[in-house]
C-alpha cells in the first residue's frame, strides 16, 4: 500500500525554531530512528548517518531561505517509517526556493555551492519540493531493502 493514508510503524513530529542550533537534535532523532527499524538487512550505520545528513541539510535549507513576509520562524519535521520505506517531510513558511533552478555543484571544480541538495539527492531515493500558500514542503523518501 503506497497511498498517503498507509499506516506507519513509527511516526515522529518535531517542531523547532528556525535556528541552526537544533540541527543536531533533529538529525540525531532521525539517526536513532534508523537504529530501531525492524528487519533491515542493509548497512544500518550508513542509513542512520544518511538520514541525519538529509534532515540536517533540509532544515539548513529551510533556515537559509526563511526570510520574507509570512515566515513564522518555525520548521516542522515529520519522520515516518513504513514497512519498506522511510519518509521525512520538512515544512516551513519561508520564501522557499525553486528546486529545479538551483545549480548542480561542479564536482570537478568544487566551490562548495549546491552541495547540500546534491547530497540529499544522492542519499535519498526520491526528493519532492512543493511551494504552496500554506508553506513549503520538502519530502524525501528512502526505500528500506
Amino acid at each position: 500500500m503506497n497511498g498517503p493514508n498507509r499506516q506507519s510503524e513509527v511516526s515522529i513530529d518535531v517542531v523547532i525554531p528556525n535556528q541552526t542550533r537544533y540541527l543536531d537534535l533533529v538529525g540525531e532523532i532521525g539517526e536513532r530512528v534508523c537504529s530501531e527499524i525492524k528487519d533491515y538487512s542493509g548497512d544500518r550505520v550508513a542509513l542512520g548517518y544518511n538520514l541525519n545528513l538529509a534532515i540536517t541539510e533540509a532544515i539548513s535549507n529551510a533556515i537559509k531561505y526563511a526570510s520574507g513576509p509570512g515566515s513564522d520562524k518555525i520548521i516542522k519535521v515529520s519522520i515516518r517509517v513504513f514497512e519498506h520505506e522511510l519518509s521525512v517531510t520538512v515544512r516551513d513558511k519561508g520564501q522557499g526556493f525553486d528546486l529545479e533552478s538551483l545549480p548542480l555543484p561542479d564536482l570537478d571544480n568544487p566551490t562548495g555551492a549546491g552541495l547540500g541538495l546534491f547530497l540529499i539527492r544522492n542519499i535519498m531515493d526520491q526528493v519532492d519540493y512543493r511551494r504552496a500558500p500554506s508553506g513549503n514542503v520538502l519530502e524525501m523518501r528512502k526505500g528500506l531493502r
Partner: protein
Amino acid sequence: MNTDLEEIVNFSVLRVNEKRIDAHNSPALKDQILELIESGNKRIVVDMSAVRFVDSSGLGVLLSGYRNAASCQGELVLSGLQPQVKSMFELTRLHRVFKIYPSIDEVTGQH
C-alpha cells in the same frame, strides 16, 4: 567551536573537538582557519578524529580553508577522518582535492 591548536614539527595542528561540523558551528571553524592563515601559518593540519558527522557547510568551510591556504602559498591537509565522514568526501569527490592522512603522526612524520 571547540578546538585545540598545537605546533608539531613545522605544522599547525587544529584539532576539532566536536562530534559534528554543521551549519551551526562551521562559520566559527571558517574564522579559526582564516585566522591561522592570516597569522602566517603555511602548513595547517585539521585533525577530525573526534568528528563523526560533517554536512555540506562543513565540507564547504574546509574547501574554503584549502583554497585560502593555497592562495597564500600554504597548504591545508586533513587527518583522522572517521569512515562515514570520509565517505562524504568520496561522494562529493573532495577526496581528490584534499590530502587526507590517517592520523596526525602520518602528516608530521612522527610515526
